[in-house]
C-alpha cells in the first residue's frame, strides 16, 4: 500500500528526465608513485605501514607478534573457514590481533577493501584491538573510481573499505584514536 502510494507520488512529481553522465577522468594532485602515495595517505589516517620484499617476511612479522604473547587470529594461515575461531570471538578481550588479506588498496585515501570471504566473521575486523591488513603492492590503485571497477559487491554479503584505526573527534574536535573499533591498524605491504 505505502509502496504504491510513494511510487505514484514520485511518478506524478518527478522532474523532466536528466541523462546519466558518462564517467570522466578526475585528476589528483600529488605523488605519481602509487605505493608511496598510498603509504602517505594510510599514515595520515592513523595506520602504520610496514614494507616487506616478500610475503614470507610479512608472515615472519606476524609470527613475531605471536611470540610476543599476542593472541592472533590469522586468516592468511586459516583460509579454510571460520571453524575454530567462533569461540574466541565471544570474549572481546581474547582477540588482540586479527590478520586479514586485503583485496586492493586505494592511493588517494589509504583505504583497503576486504569482504566477508576474507574474514568469514563480519565482526572480527571491528572487534579486535589491533587489525593487520596484508596487501600486495601491485594491488594498489590510484583512486576510488578505479577501485570500484574491481570491487565485486556481489561476491559476498558484506564488504568494507577500511582506512586506519577507528577514531572520533566528537569532543571539541580533538582527534582520539580508538573509538569503538581497533586502536591499532597496521598494513603489511609486500
Amino acid at each position, binding site marked *: 500500500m*505505502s*509502496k504504491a*502510494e*510513494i*511510487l505514484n*507520488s*514520485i*511518478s506524478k*512529481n*518527478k*522532474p523532466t528526465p*536528466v541523462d*546519466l*553522465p558518462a*564517467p570522466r577522468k*578526475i*585528476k*589528483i*594532485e600529488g605523488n605519481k608513485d602509487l605505493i608511496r602515495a598510498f603509504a602517505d595517505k594510510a599514515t595520515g*589516517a592513523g595506520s602504520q605501514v610496514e614494507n616487506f620484499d616478500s610475503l614470507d617476511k610479512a608472515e615472519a612479522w606476524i609470527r613475531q607478534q605471536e611470540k610476543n604473547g599476542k593472541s592472533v587470529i590469522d586468516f592468511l594461515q586459516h583460509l579454510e573457514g571460520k571453524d575454530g575461531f567462533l569461540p574466541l570471538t565471544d570474549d*572481546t578481550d581474547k582477540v588482540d590481533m586479527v590478520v586479514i588479506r586485503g583485496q586492493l588498496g*586505494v592511493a*588517494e*585515501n*589509504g583505504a583497503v577493501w576486504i569482504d*566477508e570471504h576474507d574474514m568469514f566473521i*563480519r*565482526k572480527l575486523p*571491528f572487534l579486535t584491538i589491533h587489525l593487520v591488513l596484508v596487501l600486495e603492492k601491485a594491488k594498489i590503485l590510484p*583512486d*576510488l*573510481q578505479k577501485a*570500484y*571497477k574491481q570491487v565485486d*559487491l*556481489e561476491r*559476498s*554479503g*558484506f*564488504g*568494507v*573499505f*577500511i*582506512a*586506519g*584505526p*577507528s*577514531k*572520533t*573527534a*566528537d*569532543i*571539541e*574536535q*580533538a582527534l*582520539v584514536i*580508538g*573509538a*569503538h*573499533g581497533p586502536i591499532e591498524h597496521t598494513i603489511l605491504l609486500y
Partner: protein
Amino acid sequence: MKHARAAREFLSNGPRTEWHSQALWYVRQKRDVQKDEIRDWEDLREQASVIKEHTLSNLDQYLEEFETKALKNGIHVHWAVNAKEHNNIVLEILQQAGVRKLVKSKSMLTEECHLNPFLMDKGIDVIESDLGERIIQFADQDPSHIVLPAIHLKKEEVGKLFEKKLNTESGNYDPTYLTGAARKHLREHFVSAEVAMTGVNFAIAESGGFAVCTNEGNADMGVHHAKIHIASMGIEKVIPGKDQLAVFLRLLARSATGQPITTYTSHFQKPAEGKEIHLIIVDNGRSEHLGKDKFWRALKCIRCGACLNTCPVYRRSGGHSYGYTIPGPIGSILTPRVDLKQYSDLPFASSLCGSCTDVCPVKIEIHEQLYQWRQEVYEQKQLSGTKKLGLKVMGRVLARPRLYHRSGKFARKALKISPRFLIYNRMNPWGRSRDLPAPPKQSFQEWYRENRSKS
C-alpha cells in the same frame, strides 16, 4: 523571529560564540586542504550533481530496481509514507523479536521521525552509539549539527555529564580519557545487542545493497553483533551503481570532515547466516518536494554538513537556533516544505553570501533557493509584520525616483540630528547590536552632478 530570538541567546556569550564559530571554521579549512588535492574537483562536483539529478528524475524506477535486487539478496524491504509509519515498522520488528533494547548508530532520518521518544514511550531502551549522539542523548538535547552532533558542547560539559552517567573521575575532561570511558560503556551494549539500527548513506540500485560511512566503527560493532539489522533511508538515497558511488565517496568525507575517506565504508549486501536485515524506505514529504520546480534540487543533498561549517550565520547562531533536525543553510531550504508557517523565518536566517553554494559537493544552489523561499513566504502570506511593512515602504520608495531622492535627503539630515532613541529602537532590529555608518554629506547623484560639470 524565532531563529533571531534563539540566536540572540546563543550570542549573549561572546567568547563562547567565537569558540563555536572557530571550531566549525577549522573543519571548513580541513575541507579546503582535501579538495585542493583533487585537481578536477569542480568536474567531480558537476558529475555528482548531474548523477543526482538523473537519479531523482527517474527515482521511481531506481527505487523499484533497488527493491527487486535487495529482496533477491534476502533483505526485508518496508515502505513508509511518513514518520508515523516508519516508527511503527521499527516497533513491530522489535516486538516480533521480543527485544526491548535498540542499539543505534547515527541517522538523521530517525531524528526527523522522532523515533527515540516514540520508542522510549513504548518502553524500549534506545542506546545511541555514535559518541557525539550518545553525549547529546545523555544531555537530553537534539544534535546541533548533522555530522558533528555535539559540536556546541565543551569538554568540561561532556566530562560533567560522564561523571554523572558513567562514573568517570571527577574533574577529568581529557577527550581521550572520556572517549575511553564511552568505549568501555558502549562495548557492553554492542556485545549484548540483539537489534541494531543504522542509517543509509547510499543505496545501490544495480546490486541491491547499501553503504554506511562511519569513523568510529559503531555501526559495524552494533549490527554485526545483533541478530537483526534495521536500516532506514529516505527515498532520495538511492543511486544507480558502484561507478556513481565512487564519485560520491570521493566527495563526501572530504567535504564533511576534511578526510579523504571515512575510516569505514561498509557495504551491506546480504544478511549474515541466520540473521536478518530490514530496510525501511521513507518518503515523509520528499516525493511532494520533488514536484516543486524551484526547490527539488535540494533533494540532491548527501548530508555532508559543509554548508553548515562555512555559514557565517550558522557558526554564530548554533544548530539549535534553527529549531529543526537539519539546521544551517541546507536545513533552511528543506524545512519550509515541512511546514512553511512554522519555519517561515528560516529562509531569512542567511546573509545570502553564497558560501554554502560554493562548498556544496553536489552543487545545490542553496543561497538561490533561500532567496526563492523568501518570495514563497511572501506569496503564502507568512511574512512577519515588521518585515512586511519594511518591504512595502522600501518597495514604494524604490519604485519612485523623486520620492527616493527626497527620502534620501531627508534621511541624511534626520540621521544627523535625531536623538539615539529615535533611530535605535524596537522598530530597528538591525540596529540592536550595530551602529549605522555616519550619513554622507551628499548622495552619489549629487556628487556626480557636481563633479561632471567640473570636468
